[in-house]
């Protein structure tokens, strides 16, 4: 399966809470696995269920609201702060999201997302609030994200987003950083030898 990502057209799930830390995205007790798979079912675990019980979903939490679904997660500012756990990006991707939209991402989360072909799209606060309002008034609002054009569109609104051209190439083609680094083996060895 190609990991490459370009155009994502989908409805979205809105989660309008600021400063969501990675402990909320995936609580520490689920970090005991030794593989990367299967974290989606514990995404936002403690916000999703009463007393950690899958038979008692919290009705007011958005992932439990059948009106909202899609491949795009829309979140308020400073998303992914706190712990560096990549499990947070794995959980979001494994749940079925390909894009996360916010006005501001924490640094480590953003890198982790990019390394897992989960596209973090940073938009202006104004655009984000319009997007929240649109999804909340009509859950069927379709959003189109194009990595190629670096654009996000809904209901005739459009905004461009930034991504460095190296990362863009990686995501469009399904390349890993590690492949790139491995191709530099001789330069890395030469660097080591040049050091005092």
């Amino acid at each position, binding site marked *: 399966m190609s990991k490459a990502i370009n155009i994502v057209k989908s409805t979205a799930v809105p989660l309008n809470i600021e400063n969501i830390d990675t402990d909320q995205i995936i609580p*520490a007790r689920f970090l005991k696995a030794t593989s990367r798979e299967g974290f989606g079912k514990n995404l936002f675990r403690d916000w999703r269920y009463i007393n950690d019980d899958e038979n008692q979903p919290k009705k007011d939490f958005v992932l439990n609201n059948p009106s909202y679904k899609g491949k795009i997660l829309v979140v308020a500012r400073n998303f992914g702060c706190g712990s560096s756990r990549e499990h947070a990006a794995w959980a979001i991707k494994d749940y079925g999201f390909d894009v996360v939209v916010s006005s501001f991402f924490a640094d480590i989360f953003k890198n982790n997302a990019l390394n897992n072909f989960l596209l973090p799209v940073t938009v202006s606060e104004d655009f984000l609030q319009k997007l929240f309002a649109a999804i909340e008034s009509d859950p069927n609002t379709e959003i189109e994200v194009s990595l190629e054009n670096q654009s996000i569109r809904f209901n005739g609104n459009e905004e461009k987003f930034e991504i460095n051209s*190296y990362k863009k190439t990686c995501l469009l083609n399904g390349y890993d950083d590690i492949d790139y680094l491995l191709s530099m083996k001789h330069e*890395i060895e030469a660097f080591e030898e040049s050091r005092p």
Partner: protein
Amino acid sequence: MSAKTLFEKIWEKHIVKQIEDGPAVLYIDKHFIHEVTSPQAFKGLEQRGLKVLRPQQVVATADHNVPTLNQHLPIRDELSRKQVQQLIKNCAKHDIELYGLGHPFQGIVHVIGPELGITQPGMTIVCGDSHTSTHGAFGAIAFGIGTSEVEMVLATQCLMQSKPRLMRINVEGQLNKGVVSKDIILYIISQISASGATGYFVEYAGSAIRSLSMEARMTICNMSIEMGARGGMIAPDQVTFDYLKGRLFAPGNSLWDKKVEAWKQLYTDEGAKFDKEIFIDAAKIEPMITYGTNPGMGIGVNGTIPKESEIDEKEKPSFLKSLNYMGLEPGTKIKGKKVDYVFIGSCTNSRIEDLRMVASFVKGKKKAKDVEVWIVPGSKQVESQAREEGIDKIFAEAGFQLRQPGCSACLGMNEDKIPAGKYCISTSNRNFEGRQGPNARTFLASPLTAAVAAITGEVADVREWL
């Protein structure tokens, strides 16, 4: 030659290649690993048929998952046990030095690196843990990475990194009585918010920072991530050199003078440019405490939680959600609030100096009746030092439990969880929802403020006791 910051001097020496309109390929000197964020990286290596490129530059320990009682027995929780065993297997297979359970050097990764002299000025240091910023206290570029990046460093000893923006935080003047380094960093975060330094690497400077011990500097750098910064650093000086001299992996006698000469060049040149600069008056800092569910929600221990009307309209839902979780009311005082647990530990405040600070305060006193007090040393070496100094007896007399080293109740991955609804005053770094256990409520504070709460059973002002 143009004036350079401390960060730039180290960064530039570690660039293998700069990619146009992209990140730099950054060479990593030291790589710390632990059981929680490394297994998938080793699995990835194996799937690609790769070896660890420079095993002698990697150091491992088991800390996040380990019990803090009866460490000589097998770990009871099956998943934790498997994860720790996986680390043992991976290290053996790839020739990586492991200070695992039972080893005299075992402990929290950010405590053992410095105390063994592995962490040194001028280095680039990474670990799959956001509190790697701790090592910046030695004048190193140190930051947390994700597991894919752990895999990259294992395979190539390099990382792809964009140069961050640079911020300097100057803390000038004299600290008040009862105010310690934890209060400085909690104060800074309360001023600039939990995201105020996102995108930046921070250098801490100024007379108040210079006056601190290495342990105290580590506490400050440790919490850089709690305001969003990728890392924090402090220029090395005589305090740094004195701390390092004679430590196991510090440069030996024949190399020492040469190394120190090189380390003395690691400072920010006069006139070097920062993208942002902040000035803090040390005299304004009080003993701090957090009331909410991110580390930016802090106030002086005598202060009042903000009123709803003082909060920006847009931030109100998050603010109210946070207070509701904490069971606190806007516009009320936090002093006098009853606490159920006191946790003194974590990579922020579990070093020998922290334990000494607590011991000198509680000597001859007893804990409040309904409070449970856990003291979790940062490493086996800290634990033995505490016993050697008789600190263990002071704790025993006070009714405190001195446990064995690990991350413990900072994140509750082992059995050390705070029960739902209970209040814990904690010297750790995060007061997030559920951090210390599902529905547990955390007040972050300094070891001194935690110690006084242990004695009184409530949030109290340590200055009234000094």
